[in-house]
């Protein structure tokens, strides 16, 4: 059974094919059934496989499955082969399980939409692609999944294609990630040339033998991989597509732009960790990128009005944490945060989607307000998820995962107090904006009233995810409290452990107390300024200095404006410049020249005899001259 892991991919793929070919002719119930069944069974299959693997007590379990030979020519051999280890297991668990919940949610959420079958076809294709990405045993197959998810992201952002702006958002997302992807594929070329293979396992084994730490080629390779990762994971400097990607339906945002696809970059870096370890400078850049992104995205999230944009910036910021963790070598901490983040962020998006649905597609939080009584299930689940995002100490999963990262950043021999401080500041901001979001949406003065309460298909996934957002953290508890290390032990065989520097004995507890208190303070502050004394915020906003920052943050630090001015507009204007293809003038010029020659020459054909005679005489003179001169 374990060898046939391809079934996990095949199941959603079959759903996709059925929906794509005959989806138009099926009833909504059948579509819903087909759509959820594939991923549901895959999730079950994953659970069973995972259970068997984990219970086998092997320290370092792996399953490989070779399907067929993809390319085999001229020294390039690539198989359609899958590889399952602990790292992949975490990912496929999240993909199938969260994916299944989101599909269930969508059966109700998308019910009114005419593109019902199309939607589920795309989602299933996405899940299949994402699974390929994660399970690929070589980088080219990974790239196939990588591009596949990009495609589905494109299709789903532009799902409501009638509005051209959605199409443009989709295109922006695809092209910006493609920039990163191109770096990645160049990285693949480099690795292929260096190692003669693209098999991940072989490369990871061969790399330390071939390169010494700090090798230029290793740096280059790592840098190119990082390029791919920042594009897909919306990190600096390729982050600007993610807020616009919210044009897609909310389940899409939950699945693709929060839980799974955007974390592909994290997966890639974790997967190729050996290369990054050989290029410490680049690995440090990973940390820097993460740290900066988490801060700037946090600030942006603080001032958004659109609830989904808050969440988008928040996602960017949380992935920044993961990058930060990866950058300091806290590999398993990054993956742990990925999982927890997938739970609570998917929940947040789903909750936000449900609110938007019942509020006539209103996205503006400031028009909502006072919803806590009207939508109790959504409120409570949203609250739990937000608390997890804000990392309220002890009771939320987010606390454990984020705390782990912050402590390891501090403790790592790569990281240190500087990076820790950035992460710490980010944590404060996170707590602030998540509280703001909850307070503005559910409390305050009453806004639009909802049309109805969502049904079971929407509430059940919310409840399940809420449970996970609350309890998920208990599988990995810090030394200081409980000391459970189920998660990192599982990953132990796949990812290396953190290298620590010398630290005072009780440092960890101190830091935990500080961060825990900080998030509580932030929540309190948010209650004060957003609920009790909004005048403080208004004053801040109206001051010229504050106004400037608010506007800057609102537009995502002006990156869009900058890219538009520096890249997009020049390129568009260049393309307008030479629409007719200036090189065409070569042929036009030649033909003009010929026509000119013709017009001049025909003048000689005057029809006058004396003129003809003269030309002949001139010709004779010319011939005579030639004969004598030469």
């Amino acid at each position: 059974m374990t060898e046939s892991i391809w079934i996990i991919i095949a199941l959603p793929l079959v759903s996709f094919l059925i929906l794509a070919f005959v989806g138009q002719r099926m009833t909504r119930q059948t579509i819903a059934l087909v759509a959820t069944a594939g991923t549901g069974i895959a999730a079950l299959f994953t659970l069973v496989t995972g259970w068997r693997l984990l219970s086998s007590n092997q320290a370092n379990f792996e399953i490989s499955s070779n399907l067929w030979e993809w390319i085999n020519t001229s020294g390039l051999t690539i198989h359609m082969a899958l590889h399952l280890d602990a790292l992949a297991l975490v990912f496929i668990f999240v993909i199938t399980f969260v994916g299944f919940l989101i599909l269930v949610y969508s059966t109700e959420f998308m019910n009114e939409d005419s593109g019902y079958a199309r939607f589920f076809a795309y989602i299933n294709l996405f899940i299949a692609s994402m699974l390929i990405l994660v399970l690929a045993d070589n980088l080219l197959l990974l790239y196939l999944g990588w591009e596949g998810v990009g495609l589905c992201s494109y299709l789903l952002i532009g799902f409501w294609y009638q509005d051209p702006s959605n199409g443009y958002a989709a295109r922006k997302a695809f092209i910006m990630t493609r920039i990163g992807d191109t770096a990645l594929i160049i990285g693949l070329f480099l690795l292929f040339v260096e190692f003669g293979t693209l098999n991940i396992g072989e490369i990871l084994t061969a790399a330390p033998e071939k390169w010494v730490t700090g090798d230029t080629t290793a740096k280059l390779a790592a840098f190119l991989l990082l390029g791919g990762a920042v594009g897909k994971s919306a990190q600096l400097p390729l982050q600007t597509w993610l807020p616009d990607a919210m044009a897609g339906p909310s389940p899409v945002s939950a699945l693709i732009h929060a839980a799974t696809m955007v974390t592909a970059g994290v997966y890639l870096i974790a997967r190729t960790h050996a290369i990054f370890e050989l290029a410490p400078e680049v690995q440090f850049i990973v940390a820097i990128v993460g740290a900066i992104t988490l801060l700037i995205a946090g600030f942006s999230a603080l001032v958004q009005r659109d609830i989904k944009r808050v969440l988008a910036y928040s996602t960017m910021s949380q992935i920044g944490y993961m990058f930060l963790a990866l950058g300091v070598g806290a590999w398993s901490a990054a993956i742990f945060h990925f999982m927890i983040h997938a739970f609570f962020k998917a929940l947040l998006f789903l909750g936000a989607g449900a609110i938007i649905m019942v509020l006539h597609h209103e996205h503006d939080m400031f028009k909502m307000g006072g919803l806590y009584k009207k939508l109790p299930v959504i409120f409570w689940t949203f609250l739990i998820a937000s608390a997890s995002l804000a990392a309220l100490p002890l009771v939320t999963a987010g606390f454990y995962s984020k705390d782990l990262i912050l402590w390891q950043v501090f403790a790592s021999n790569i990281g240190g107090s500087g990076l820790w401080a950035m992460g710490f500041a980010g944590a404060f901001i996170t707590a602030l904006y998540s509280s703001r979001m909850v307070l503005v949406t559910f409390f305050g003065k009453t806004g639009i009233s909802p049309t109805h309460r969502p049904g079971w298909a929407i509430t059940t996934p919310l409840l399940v995810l809420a449970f996970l957002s609350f309890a998920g953290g208990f599988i990995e508890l810090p030394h200081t409290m409980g000391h459970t290390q189920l998660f990192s032990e599982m990953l132990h065989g796949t990812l290396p452990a953190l290298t620590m520097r010398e630290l005072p004995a009780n440092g960890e507890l101190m830091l935990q107390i500080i961060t825990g208190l900080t998030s509580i303070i932030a929540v309190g502050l948010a209650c004060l300024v957003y609920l009790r004394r909004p005048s403080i915020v208004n004053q801040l906003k109206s001051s010229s200095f504050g106004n400037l920052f608010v506007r800057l943050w609102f537009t995502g630090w002006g990156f869009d404006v900058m890219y538009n001015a520096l890249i997009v507009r020049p390129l568009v204007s260049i393309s307008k410049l030479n629409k007719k293809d200036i090189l065409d003038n070569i042929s036009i010029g030649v033909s003009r020249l010929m026509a000119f020659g013709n017009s001049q020459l025909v003048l000689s054909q005057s029809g006058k005899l004396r003129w003809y005679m003269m030309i002949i005489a001139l010709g004779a003179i010319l011939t005579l001259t030639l004969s004598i001169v030469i």
Partner: protein
Amino acid sequence: MILVALISTLVLGGLLAMLLEKWVTGSAKWVGLVASLLTMSLAGSLWIQYTGIDASTVSNGVFMVFKKPWIPEFGIEFHLEVDGLGLVMVMLTGFLGLVAVLISWSQVKHKEGFYYLNLLWTLAGIMGVFLAFDLFLFYLFWEVMLVPMYFLISIWGSANRIYAAYKFFIYTQIGGLLMLVALLGLYFLNGSSTGVYSFNYWDLIKTVLTTEQSMWLMWGFLIAFLIKLPVLPLHNWLPDAHGEAPTAGSVILAGLLLKTGAYGILRFVVPFFPDASQSIAMPAMILGVCGILYGAKLAFAQTDMKRLVAYTSVSHMGFVIIGIFAFNQLAWQGVIMQLVAHGLSTGALFVLAGILYQRTGTRDIRKYGGLWATVPRMGVAGLILVLASLGLPGLANFVAEFMTLAGTFTTTPIIAIAAAIGLIAAAVYSLRIMQKVFYGQDTASEKISDLSSMETLTIATVVFLLIYLGLNPGPITRTVEPSIKQLISQVETPDKGGFSYRTQVNNKSSSNGKH
């Protein structure tokens, strides 16, 4: 005999279509269909025969020869051969020929007899180009295919067809004549040194040339092929010809005619002038990169659907040039893959553009929009073809581009990196098609009809092949492998004296010591 049949079926089919149409109106298309089906099945049987052969038993991949003296005074033979490379191209020709006939089915309404004559004769010419192993014969087919193509464009094309047809003809004719001059130069140089005046490929390949000679002669060949390919800045015939040609014409132009250029370089320029062609590799690759980016830029700027697709061809053929001049086995495999993949995907894209034009009466993409809702099948087809064009993994084009660039990276990384930027550009212009045509609100007053079942079948077959070859390119790569190996051996060992395998093909003595 099967080789002759491949060509003669098309020639005779064309004649029959023309004549029968005079008697029975509407019969030409059926004749066309039967002829192209027959050709396809002949190509298929050739394929089956090839797969049945143990590759190691055939010398350098050539597994079927047909030779008849033709003009013995000049050493010209009616000499056809097929090896793996030729076979792939023959299959492509057979398939796209069928597509061209099917797509003309409902689109060509007047002068059908003459239309199918030209269509089938163009295909016959192309088929001949891929099979000829006598250089005179090759040149003959090379030129002959232009004439029916000229008619196709100038009679059944759209508004600006006359200009386009002229341009097409004159551009390619200049290249062709230069090739003729170079070809004869080679012929005499070979003849005077060996005493055997022959146009036989395997004789001429042994010609010993000085550096200067091979440089000049190579340019003669190369310009002809580069015009056809086309490379910057010789590409200007292409947007006009592709844009104005009838749908089937565009399919053949993009799918097959451009490929003859690449085929020519691989088959003739590289083995005949290995040193000379290697010495210009860098400038050629730079031109290739320029072509990729320039073509992409212009594709992005176009508002005419067919011109847009035409410029994407310029861009894609840039990869082919880079791949060829990388002089690397993997890159060449990629090039051939690219020829097939681009032939299929761009051919089908032209089919789609033609259908859109037929239904809406305009090719201006600004006047389309929101078509997904009205014609979902067309939308799906368009999406997949556009994705193929931007090189999405899982489709044949990706495999092609990957192999080409990976191969190029091993020799000249900087070029591969520069070309990879073209992948971003491809995404930009390809998605623009989706955005303008299928996304947005449908503003047209009249609803157009979706793909008919025959059109669906045609495009679905192409899509199937693209996906199949994208996931399993083995059938192509394995087939051309012996040819590629033989070609690369020419480049890697410029010592021409040491080729023993030629004697198996060529009865004439090849043992006169050179060098």
